[in-house]
């Protein structure tokens, strides 16, 4: 017997902020989307975020990540959106089928519209000793901490002073770990100043213009060697965990498998499915949203998810042109607002380039 295959109007891959908002927006247009997610819980990365979120009232700003996740999941339930958890999409084929491995077994979905909201993966960089137990992604540490209630170590060194590094450093402190320092190769933080301030207020030294050379240890990390870029001075930090927060990479594999044109934008994390302002990829019926469409903030992901759903609903005929245009106008204005500040200038640059072709 062959693989069972099911037709459906719309599948959203990824139950993070982008995917859930896409499903909610689709529901408003009368399309019942099926949301697939490999995790046990919905909400994507929001689920493990315990800090209050930036953004506007449209994005749940001021609430904690996991609270926003819970609200969105509830909203989906109310709207009749089905979220299939523990369901990994193993492949997306040129014919449009999605191969799913879920609690029901392995099966195929044949949606008319596919929204790829697969998020981003942690970037890593190799250094001597990076394979030692205790060296892990900052996101991994966050999962361990905030979802499973386990410290990655008693004394931790954070590598990378972007938002992720600073937030996770703070969360390590909240859970009772010591943070021996935050190491950053650049002259300053790419993250929000308030995050930097919070970490500093707790007495954590932030070492700018420093880079990680090596991790030392036997069965696990015992120390990290850090070099000051300008002086060439090398110092050994005794720590039992090393967290890497050196960036995120859009997960574009499904789009690539599907045959979507892939673009490159360093500012957005690297390779990503090319898409227009309305979140359509180069393949008809395939849309992209959230970090998979370029790494930005969760609030951006939410509006991108809604935009993608508006485009899909319009293409499926569930939303007439005028209503679609009105919704789109509002969402695009909101996105423009989110990307308006000086910290987003690189995003605006990359987006302009992407839109130009």
């Amino acid at each position, binding site marked *: 017997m062959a693989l069972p295959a099911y037709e459906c109007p719309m599948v959203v891959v990824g139950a993070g902020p982008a995917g859930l908002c896409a499903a909610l927006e689709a529901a408003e247009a009368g399309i019942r989307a099926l949301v697939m997610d490999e995790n046990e819980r919905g909400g994507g990365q929001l689920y493990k975020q315990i800090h209050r979120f930036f953004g506007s009232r449209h994005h749940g700003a*001021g609430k904690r990540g996991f609270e926003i996740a819970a609200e969105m999941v509830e909203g989906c339930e109310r709207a009749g959106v089905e979220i299939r958890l523990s369901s990994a999409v193993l492949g997306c084929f040129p014919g449009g089928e999605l191969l799913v491995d879920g609690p029901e077994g392995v099966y195929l979905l044949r949606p008319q519209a596919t929204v790829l909201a697969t998020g981003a993966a942690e970037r890593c960089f190799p250094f001597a000793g990076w394979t030692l137990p205790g060296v892990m992604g900052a996101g991994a540490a966050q999962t361990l901490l905030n979802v499973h209630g386990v410290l990655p170590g008693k004394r931790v060194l954070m590598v990378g002073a972007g938002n992720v590094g600073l937030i996770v450093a703070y969360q390590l402190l909240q859970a009772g770990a010591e943070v021996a320092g935050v190491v950053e190769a650049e002259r300053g933080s790419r993250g929000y100043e*308030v995050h930097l301030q919070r970490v500093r*207020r707790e007495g954590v030294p932030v070492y700018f213009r420093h880079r990680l050379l090596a991790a030392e240890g036997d069965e696990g990390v015992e120390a990290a060697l850090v070099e000051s870029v300008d002086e060439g001075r090398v110092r050994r930090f005794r720590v039992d965990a090393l967290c890497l927060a050196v960036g995120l990479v859009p997960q574009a594999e499904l789009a690539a498998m599907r045959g979507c044109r892939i673009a490159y934008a360093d500012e957005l994390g690297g390779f990503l499915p090319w898409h227009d302002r309305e979140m359509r990829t180069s393949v008809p019926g395939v849309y992209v949203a959230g970090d998979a469409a370029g790494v930005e903030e969760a609030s951006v992901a939410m509006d991108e998810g809604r935009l993608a759903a508006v485009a899909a609903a319009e293409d499926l005929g569930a939303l007439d042109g005028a209503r679609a245009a009105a919704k789109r106008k509002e969402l695009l204005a909101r996105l423009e607002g989110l990307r308006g500040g000086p910290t987003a200038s690189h995003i605006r640059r990359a987006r302009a380039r992407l839109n130009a072709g």
Partner: protein
Amino acid sequence: MKERKERKESKEREEGKATGEGGRGAARDALQGGRDDPWTAAWEVSRRKAVAVVDCRQEIPCDPCETACRKGAIRVGDDVCALPISEPETCDGCGRCVALCPGMAIYLIDRSADGGKAAVTVPYEMGEEPRAGMEARVVDGEGKELGRGKILEVRAMGGAAATLLVKVEVPETWALKVRGVRLRQMFIEEPEEVEGYRGTGDCLICRCEEIARAEVEKAAGSGFRSLAALRRASRVGLGYCQGRFCREPLREELARKCGRGVEELGIGSPRPPLRPVKISRLGGGDVRDTQF
């Protein structure tokens, strides 16, 4: 000597000068365009009642302070990246904005009590539980310890997973500098100097197949031009994780070696399955009957 410094700062304040990093000067610099300096106003009003001081200096997309305030005393406006403007006269000192500011950058100052003291209320989310009557270390925005202060009051605000608002009594001269209280003193050991460090410069690049950077460089040097070719030549990225963790560094390595841009190397041709899947599952045709 400490007293002298405080006197000096007090004088600067009277003269309207900056009171250090994170002080009024910085706020004024950020608030260009002829708008009122909210700090000056807050300072004045705090003589009479508790009032919020918004130390928001970076135009990031954020507006919970505006929605938090039930009196409408904080405005961000249509531009979500605009810096908030507060109206100290309207502020009732409720502290909701202090609890809900994602940046933890809003404080209450209250100088209504006499005796050169001020009560500063700061947000607090650390593990050590603050209680009224305790002594806490009081720190400025850079984490520098200003001294000790007595905790006057602790209350929780901001939803189910509340933020604690800790009101601490400090000398009046610190009122605009206090940014946090610390109950725990971390043991930050000074890192030791390592003399004459000479690393090998080499390390594993592919964790699964245990392939060193030097091997990759060698393969790249012998003419392989794509990630796929490099994989065939060295098995790099062919392990259990399928290159999910070495792909980016490898591409960078290869680009450097061939003198090409990372973008020229392309994303490659990912193949299913994206996650390991048991043969029994992949080959199974029995899927529980479900409605789609």
